[in-house]
Structures are given as structure tokens and as C-alpha cells.
């Protein structure tokens, strides 16, 4: 594998990371919105969210990607590989993030919310000033763990034809008849990226324990 091959690998890696990051940036707040719907027990919508989360958590990324890419045009919404990839990653990670946020919300100490109510805070204000500042800290390790899992699953979008790192490796391998080097290189690149997140998670956990007494 020569320099050009390595360059296209890096290009693919950049695309993969970018798509994963977009998925993360979209999926974390979306997961929070879904969790809030269930926490506020909005009728009908809560049940819809519960079903959505249950199904999305049981669906493999590859299957979801194929469903979105092939089925949406079928019901009248044309979609390109890149938007389909982003949609797949976002919808999937939002479902897992919903459960993470929900766990933090249900564990949240009710007495604090009572004090906020008694002080005249509306539910919205109480969430913004009292609940959220605390739950984003407690949820952070689990959220970062989910980000790691999303990046590890992102090769699934290779089925969509977007030239991500996996496809680049396959192409190089088939051109040079030496499949192993590009795959090893791709694995090393992924390894490095994921390691960054894993280390970040461990640092966050120990920081939380030291500063706030919990993890």
C-alpha cells in the first residue's frame, strides 16, 4: 500500500469521524428530548417514544441504514448516502442516549425539585437551573461510552456506498491484491480515535468522583 492509498484511507477516516460526530451532536440532545417526553409522561407521545426506543435499540445499524436508504425513497422521500448515514447514526444513538438521560432523571432527588417548586419556579425553570446542570454531569460517562459505541458501529454505513474508511480499505485491497495492510491501517486509525474517547471517559469518571463525590 503506497502513499496514495494511505491518503485515501485518511480521507475515508475523516469522513467517518465527521459523520459520527454529527450523529453524536444530533443524538445527545435528541435523546434528552425523548427522555423528557417520557419523564413528563405526556400522554400518547410517551408510549410512542417508548416503542421507538425499544425498537431502535434492538435494530442493528446495518439493517437500519438499509431501511432508511432503500425504504425512504419508496415512500416518496429521496435520500442520498450521506444524509442517510447521518440519519441512521443519529436515530440509533438518540435511542440509547434516551435511556441514559432517563436513568439520570428518574434517579434525580425529588426533594430538590420540591424546593424549586416551593420557591416559585415553573417546571421549565426548575429543569433549566436545577435539574439539567446536575444530570449532564452525572450522565457524562455513560454518554461518552455511547459515543464510543457509535464510532465502533459507524463502519455500518459502508453498505450505503459512501466512501468511508471501510470502503477505502476494501478498494485499496482489491487494487493491490494485498488486502491486509489497508485493513490493519484502518483498524489502527479507528483504534486511535476510539482510544481518545475511552481515555476521555476514564478521565471524566475520576474527575467526577474527586470533585463531586460521585461517578
Amino acid at each position: 500500500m503506497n502513499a496514495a492509498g494511505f491518503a485515501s484511507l485518511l480521507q475515508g477516516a475523516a469522513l467517518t469521524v465527521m459523520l459520527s460526530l454529527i450523529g453524536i451532536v444530533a443524538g445527545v440532545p435528541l435523546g434528552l428530548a425523548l427522555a423528557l417526553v417520557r419523564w413528563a409522561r405526556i400522554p400518547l407521545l410517551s408510549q410512542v417514544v417508548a416503542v421507538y426506543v425499544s425498537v431502535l435499540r434492538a435494530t442493528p445499524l446495518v439493517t437500519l441504514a438499509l431501511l432508511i436508504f432503500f425504504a425512504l425513497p419508496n415512500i416518496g422521500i429521496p435520500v442520498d448516502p450521506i444524509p442517510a448515514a447521518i440519519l441512521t447514526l443519529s436515530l440509533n444513538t438518540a435511542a440509547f442516549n434516551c435511556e441514559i438521560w432517563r436513568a439520570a432523571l428518574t434517579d434525580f432527588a425529588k426533594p430538590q425539585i420540591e424546593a424549586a417548586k416551593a420557591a416559585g419556579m415553573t417546571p421549565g425553570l426548575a429543569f433549566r437551573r436545577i435539574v439539567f446542570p446536575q444530570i449532564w454531569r452525572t450522565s457524562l460517562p455513560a454518554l461518552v461510552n455511547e459515543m464510543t459505541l457509535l464510532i465502533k458501529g459507524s463502519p455500518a454505513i459502508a453498505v450505503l456506498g459512501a466512501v468511508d474508511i471501510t470502503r477505502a480499505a476494501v478498494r485499496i485491497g482489491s487494487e493491490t491484491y494485498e488486502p491486509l495492510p489497508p485493513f490493519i491501517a484502518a483498524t489502527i486509525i479507528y483504534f486511535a480515535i476510539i482510544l481518545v474517547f475511552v481515555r476521555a471517559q476514564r478521565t471524566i469518571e475520576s474527575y467526577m468522583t474527586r470533585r463531586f463525590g460521585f461517578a
Partner: protein
Amino acid sequence: MALDAKIATEFATATAERPVIEVRGVSKSFGDHAVLCDVSLTVDKGKTICILGPSGSGKSTLLRCLNWLERPDHGDVYLSGQRIGYRVGGHVAMSSSELAAIRARIGMVFQHFNLWPHLTVLGNLIEAPIYVQRRARDTVIADAERLLTKVGLAEKRDVYPARLSGGQKQRVAIARALAMRPEVLLFDEATSALDPELVGEVLAVMKDLANEGMTMVVVTHEMGFAREAADEIVFLDHGRVVEVSDPASFFDRPRSERARQFLQRYERA
């Protein structure tokens, strides 16, 4: 025409000298269990009312009905003549922002302090005045520091609640409620969760407030405090108001049998 007359009467009543809190015929059940039965009481401005009674008599539930943390099944609660929980003249429930506005005028101190752990002591005090009452930050901070000095915790201003003792936390909680400049202060067994040697410092603050003319409704087991600081004792048993009298009469010459039994238990203890 009928609506105009109704509004006119409400206005007239509102401008006359009226009690800070008025409870009329409040009843509340949790499932099959009737906790409050037809409770009525009046809290005049500047007075300290102590609600006493055995466990399970409904004292805390009654207190929590005053700021609508519990919603009565029947009856009404009025704050300075304004009906809580329902809009003027109707059966339409208040929106959450209207309810919040009412609660901002009532201060509450909880048994377990309920401080917000992610804010410093000062942060706890200034949070609601700034974000609920939208007062200017500088005046709020100045006010808060004055209150902290008043409860004896000025040097703890930048400390997080986790580092405070129970008595200190409760004093912060009292200052936090006072920072809202409430029309009335509610105390829900404020000293029950404290170690015995810390109870005194909190009761001292409460006594000062009573002497300064703060309108207070106190649910407590501290008979000494009730005897010294209360203007009126309301004795509750099994969800009903059994006796209402001034402290001297209540403690020395209780009129009802149940009050006598209740006081006997405390004398022995």
C-alpha cells in the same frame, strides 16, 4: 352583570384588612385514607402559628396544602385574599406559571433542607430571587449577604452545601426562603432531621424571626419552641382541628381529652 358584582366583591375583600393565610374546609385523602377532614384556620399578619399533633395527624399535609404542593380534594386556601390553585371566580385551575407566582410569595423550609447541591450557599440564596422574581443581581446579592449574616453564616457564602452540618444547612435554607421576601414562612418539621445538639441554633433563628414579626406557620414537635414563640396553637388529630388556643391555655389547661393525652406523652418524655 353577575360577573361584575363578583369581581367587585373580590376587590373589596382584597383591599380590606385580611389574614395572610385563610384555610376553609380543606379535606384531602390519599386513596382510601382520609388525611385531612374539613380543616379551617386563619393566619393573621405578624403572627406565629404552631401546628401540633401526633404522627399521622395530617400536619405536614396541611402545611403542604398551603402552597399547593398537595392539592386539597375539597375546600379553599387563600393567600392575602387571593384564592390559590384556581383562577378568580371560577373552577378553572391555575396554570403552572400562575401557581409558581403564588408560591414565590410563600417561603418554605423543609425537614431535609432540600438545598441545591450544585450551587454554593450564596448561589442557593440568590437563585430564585434572580430567576423567578427577576430582581437585579446586585441588590439580590447584597440582600443575601445581609441574610447570611443574620443567620450567622456569612463566612460560608462560597461553600457548597455538602460541606455544611445539618444545622448550618437548615439555617441556609431559612435564609434562602427569606431571600424571596415572602408574605409568610412555612416550616415543615424543620428540626426533626437534626442531631439534638444542632436543634438549638435553628430554633434560635426561628425565634428571632417570630419576634421580628414574621408571619410563620410552623409544624413542629418542639414543645418548648411552641410554648415560647407561638401566638396560637392549632392542635390536629386524625386530620381534624381539635383545639385552637394560645400557648399558655393549651399547655396548662388543654380543653380536649385528646390534647391532654398528647401532652402527657411529651411530659413523660
